[in-house]
């Protein structure tokens, strides 16, 4: 007969041992896991830095970023200078129902207006509510973590970016 006891008994031993070891799961609503700082949870917008240059919107593979802006005349910075045109952001929406969390928009932003935040609790019962407007995106900004140090052997950060 093919039944050699060790294999069957050994399996029982493993499950019994595990039973005594305790759980590894996290009881979600009561306790929460802290995702790593790099975790791509949600995109935060720092509105003051945005010039509505459309780069992120254009780089998005899913076309899920909607930007509208207008120019406004502002008085000159220096005495006697010509008045400046400033881009003001009217609308900055990210449709998280479409977003693939690739992070291209964050990388492509030349003015440091977009950041990743590891926050993940923004599920909605209604799919339309996943369209976050600029105020909602701005709220995420305070959850953006500090830039963490790099591993031994990493080249010193040559790029001034972030």
């Amino acid at each position, binding site marked *: 007969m093919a039944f050699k006891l060790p294999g069957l008994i050994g399996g029982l031993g493993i499950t019994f041992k595990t039973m005594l070891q305790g759980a590894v799961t996290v009881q979600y609503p009561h306790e929460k896991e802290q995702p790593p700082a790099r975790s791509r949870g949600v995109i935060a917008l720092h509105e*003051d*830095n*945005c*010039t*509505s*240059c*459309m*780069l992120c*919107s*254009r780089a*998005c593979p899913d*076309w*899920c*970023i*909607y*930007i*509208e*802006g207008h120019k406004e005349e502002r008085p000159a*910075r220096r005495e006697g200078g010509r008045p*400046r045109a*400033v*881009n003001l952001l009217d609308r900055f929406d990210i449709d998280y129902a479409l977003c693939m969390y690739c992070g291209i928009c964050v990388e492509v932003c*030349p*003015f440091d207006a977009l950041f990743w935040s590891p926050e993940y609790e923004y599920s909605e019962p209604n799919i339309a509510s996943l369209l976050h407007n600029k105020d909602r995106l701005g709220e995420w900004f305070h959850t953006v973590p500090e830039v963490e140090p790099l591993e031994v052997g990493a080249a010193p950060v040559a790029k001034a970016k972030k």
Partner: protein
Amino acid sequence: MSDLEVLTTRVTEALGDCVIEHAEACGNLVLRVRLDSWRSVAETARNTLGCNYLSFISGIDWMPAPTVGLIEGDTSTPAQPKEMTFGAAGSAGRFQVFAHVQSTVQHIGFTIKADVDEAAPHCDSWVSVYPGADWHERECWEMYGVVFDGHPSLRHLYLPAEFEGHPLRKDFPLLAREVKPWPGLTDVEPMPGSESDEETKDEAVEA
């Protein structure tokens, strides 16, 4: 003589006058063979050259996509040349079938291409040589409309049976890109790096 040159000589000698042209593309040997010898090339590759492993069979449409890069200033779709150009080892027309065969023993492999007719693409089936060609040919048939003669059951693989058209042909539109306006088109701010860029950045910092 490098490994690739050795392989090239071996393969071209074995295939003889079936080969129209051969080329090297990034360390990979690409052969263009006559369409009527498509089956016998597979037999030679398998029996003489020992390429027992079929990696894939697929097609290619060399026509520039009519829907790509149409709108001025639209950077959402990658820029492509407007005229028809061909890749490694050339092509006679718009459609080609190409396949990659390999040997699991000698660790060699090469790509075989054949030109098929544009109006009524036809090609011999490889199923009797490589049984795995079955699904690849079904896929190629539904995606490009290339009919594989001698295939046991050329029916749809991915798409529903009543589907019309051949999606991977370049003139088949990608509806997802056409029904929705490109959100990047609404503004015309100068791109960073252009002359007015520095000024914009200045202002942005201050604002």
